[in-house]
């Protein structure tokens, strides 16, 4: 800049090419920054979109459940109408289900067929019979859930067949093709092998007893010398040796020499060479017959996918098709209730004191610093506090919503105090002064005039604090609220799980069905959070007065 200034006077410089170039460059830099900013925002929103989309993509299937319509004869010989709980429902359900497949024979095949139905189906039937004891002796039609793999299969989440060959195997085959040694003969893919027809391996007087297979393999391995040849054997068809045998029988003089023989490839590679994709039964299923049995249910129209009410009304289960969120939702409700009952009154009282009464001295400074710091202490530390003090020192019961709510209330307290102080500050002094002027005491001013006006702001802050508490996981894990509990808690002292801890335990489960259940549980949790935040926004807009 300085050298151009010395070279040209301002009048010359202004409007010159150089000035235009420089201005353009500066404006380009400005645009660049703007686009960087837009890009950053776009990236953040894109990531949010991907997060939500991937949850919906995996989670939406869990909102329906594949069920089979099953006619179940409730024989009086099997069920005592007076004591319906004692009957062997496993047998009743099994026989009713097996009746759908009269063609399936053999114990193993029948057991495979049994596995199509959820193993919890007998409890559903039992509960039905207990509730409808007058149905004994009749035949009832019930809709029963399929077991997880077949539920997933019906929803199209997992395929019944998968590609038979791994990428590595295909790669290996491609090197063979690139050497131009694979061709088609008699409608079969064959590979040309340089086989040394070892006289020691063949009895010259009886050609039928040669180790042709191993001769072919030895010759074939020479293609893969660099690779470690063990897997290469699977490329050859089981009858590869027969081709060599036929050749030797036709050319007796080839014994002891190296011959070029074309031997057939295994069926999967044959298919690949012909441009098809070889498939095999998905290893999640026991056998192709099991899948055929399932397909026959599909064809007969016995399967349906109604809305999965069990997701909301069942509690946790080891079996994905029966696992639901009822226990977690009730547990979260109790936990938040305790958290609200503790933190709301305490937060308001503390905020009123700090905002309206506290003198500015060391102690109130200390309290303020403490509150600000507590808001930023990692949540897992609160879990440690709950574990050491509430469980260890006071001996409260483990996994109880009471303890969870107490720990979460300590975390929510700073949020509520800060929100309440802001709301109290926003009340104009004229209101206080008018009330004081007509003779109200300071307590009366606050209780009768300031607090009601500040209430919408306080409630908004409280709901936002509770929404945070609803999503909090780590402290609940430490006090044992991730236990496996198959019924909803009946009170704040009973063992329970909460929504986020339920999500954590489902995410850890190996069954395929829990992936979509976890996503669905997250969608339910996000739904609650959106609802709470919407209420907060509504309260703020509807009741908050602008002064």
């Amino acid at each position: 800049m300085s050298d151009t200034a010395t070279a040209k006077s301002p009048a010359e410089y202004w409007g010159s090419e150089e000035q235009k170039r420089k201005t353009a460059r500066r404006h380009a830099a400005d645009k660049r920054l703007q686009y960087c900013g837009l890009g950053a925002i776009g990236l953040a929103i894109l990531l949010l979109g991907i997060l939500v989309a991937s949850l919906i993509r995996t989670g939406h299937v869990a909102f329906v459940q594949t069920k089979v319509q099953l006619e179940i004869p409730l024989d009086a010989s099997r069920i005592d109408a007076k004591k319906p709980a004692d009957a062997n429902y496993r047998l009743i359900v099994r026989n009713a289900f097996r009746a759908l497949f009269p063609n399936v024979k053999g114990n193993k095949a029948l057991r495979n067929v049994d596995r199509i139905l959820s193993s919890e189906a007998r409890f559903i039937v039992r509960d039905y019979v207990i509730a409808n004891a007058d149905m004994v002796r009749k035949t009832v039609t019930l809709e029963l859930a399929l077991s997880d793999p077949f539920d997933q299969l019906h929803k199209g989440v997992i395929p019944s067949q998968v590609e038979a060959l791994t990428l590595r195997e295909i790669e290996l085959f491609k090197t063979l093709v690139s050497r131009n040694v694979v061709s088609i003969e008699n409608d079969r893919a064959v590979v040309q092998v340089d086989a040394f027809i070892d006289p020691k391996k063949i009895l010259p007087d009886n050609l039928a007893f040669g180790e042709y297979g191993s001769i072919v393999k030895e010759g074939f391995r020479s293609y893969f010398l660099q690779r470690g040849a063990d897997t290469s054997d699977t490329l050859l068809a089981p009858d590869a040796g027969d081709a060599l045998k036929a050749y030797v029988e036709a050319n007796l003089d080839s014994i002891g020499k190296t011959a070029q023989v074309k031997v057939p490839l295994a069926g999967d590679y044959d298919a690949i060479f012909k441009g098809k994709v070889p498939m095999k039964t998905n290893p999640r299923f026991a056998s192709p017959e099991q899948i055929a049995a399932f397909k026959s249910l599909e064809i007969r129209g016995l399967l349906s996918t109604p809305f999965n009410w069990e997701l909301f009304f069942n509690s946790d289960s080891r079996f994905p098709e029966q696992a639901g969120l009822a226990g977690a939702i009730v547990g979260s409700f109790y936990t938040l209730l305790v958290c609200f009952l503790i933190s709301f009154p305490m937060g308001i009282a503390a905020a009123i004191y700090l905002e309206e009464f506290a003198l500015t001295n060391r102690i109130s400074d200390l309290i303020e610093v403490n509150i600000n710091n507590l808001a930023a202490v990692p949540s897992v530390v609160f879990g440690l506090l709950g574990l050491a003090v509430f469980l260890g020192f006071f001996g409260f019961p483990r996994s109880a919503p009471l303890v969870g709510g107490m720990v979460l209330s300590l975390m929510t307290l700073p949020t509520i105090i800060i929100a309440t102080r802001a709301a109290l500050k926003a009340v104009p002094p004229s209101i206080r002064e008018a009330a004081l002027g007509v003779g109200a005491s300071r307590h009366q001013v606050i209780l009768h005039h300031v607090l009601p006006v500040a209430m919408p702001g306080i409630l908004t802050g409280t709901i936002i604090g509770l929404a945070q508490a609803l999503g909090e996981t780590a402290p609940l894990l430490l006090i044992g609220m991730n236990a496996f509990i198959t019924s909803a808690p009946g009170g704040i002292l009973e063992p329970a799980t909460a929504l986020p801890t339920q999500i954590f335990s489902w995410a850890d489960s190996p069954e395929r069905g829990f992936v979509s259940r976890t996503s669905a549980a997250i969608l339910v949790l996000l739904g609650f959070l959106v609802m709470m935040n919407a209420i907060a926004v509504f309260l703020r807009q509807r009741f908050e007065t602008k002064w």
Partner: protein
Amino acid sequence: MLTIVFATLLALTAASYIIGRRRAYAVVGGAPENLHSRPVYHGAFVAAWVGIPAFFLVLVWLALQGPVVDVLLVQSLPAEKTSGLDPAQIDLLVSEIKSVAAGNIFGQPDAIVRAAAQQYKSWQGIAQWAMFACALAAAMTGLALTRRRISAAFCARHSVERVMNIIMISCSLVAILTTLGIVISLMVEALRFFDRVSPAAFFFGLNWEPQIPIREDQGTASGAFGAIPVFTGTLLIAGIALLAAVPTGLYSAVYLTEYANPRVRAVIKPILEVLAGIPTVVYGFFAVLTVAPAMRSFGETIGMDIAPNSALAAGAVMGIMIIPFISSFSDDAINAVPKSMREGSYGLGATKAETIKNVLLPAALPGIMGGVLLAASRAIGETMIVVMAAGLIARLTANPFEAVTTVTVQIVTLLIGDTEFDNPKTLAAFALGLVLFVVTLILNVFALRIVQKYREKYE
């Protein structure tokens, strides 16, 4: 039982409020203008003295009942049953008696245990009824004493307001109590840990294998509690998160404050804040479900081996979570720069980008740094994302494609399903927790001070 006690106390409190108010009307012959305080204050005065002492009595009783009954129980056991047992074994015996008393009988408890369980049950019953009786007595005493004080000249309002003051002060002291509770509980357990493992071995050891049980004779010399790899893993993941979040957050804030028109800003800011409102367990699942597999398959296509629980995946997802922190703190800081500085720069002919680079960012730097420090403390203390997406094995590496573990992961995995605080494994979690608390506290105090000072400068 507890529900009955609390319901009774609540009903008594409500009744005494009405009694107090009626009494106040009665003493002045139905002319409340002759009272010093309005009748409601007389009612509230009586109710406070009926409800609050009884309520606290119940709380204290509940806190002490368990330990006292335990001591009685141990003393009532015949001497031959308890002689030669160390305290841990006695604890075991007591919990066996309790579970028998609760009806959970495993195997065949012997006659002494069964008798003790009966004894325990009856004591529990006695204690409950005694508590009920004491609470009732306290409430009645309060009612009798306070009802007598009601007169035309009695300053009930002053008394009630004094009680309210005490309640409000004790509520605000809860913040201090919580901090004290955290410090003391972490300190106590951490000191017990350092009794068994020397602090030098903990802070400078390079080998972290807490899950392997340490033999008695081997003691603490094995060095399995060297936390350096855990600390470096934490720093690696937090560093990746900040590396991803700081530029994104800062650029978004610059765009939102300087370029976007108010309408766009009003839409985009809440969307960014949604990222901060998503529970971390959701981010953790997102990392496991989508990000880590995507990174792994991307690594495969370019021939690189990325661990399924790599530090990169956990750090990147944590970065997404932190973006709104950085962006809203930077937003506040840039907005707080006085208009005159901005306009002075424009007046000299600077473009927006030049103003931002040369004027706004330097002026806002302390505020932005405060935000980054708070975000760093958030990243170090973040638990669920790393518990789900990072590794369990401590590895001393700076390679982001490998799996590392963090302080919070170790705390959670060491403590899940374990309540006995008597082995180094669970106590180590408290030592790690203490380190975590101290480090985040320092970062927070430092950051809050910077932000506050900076605000004062321009206000």
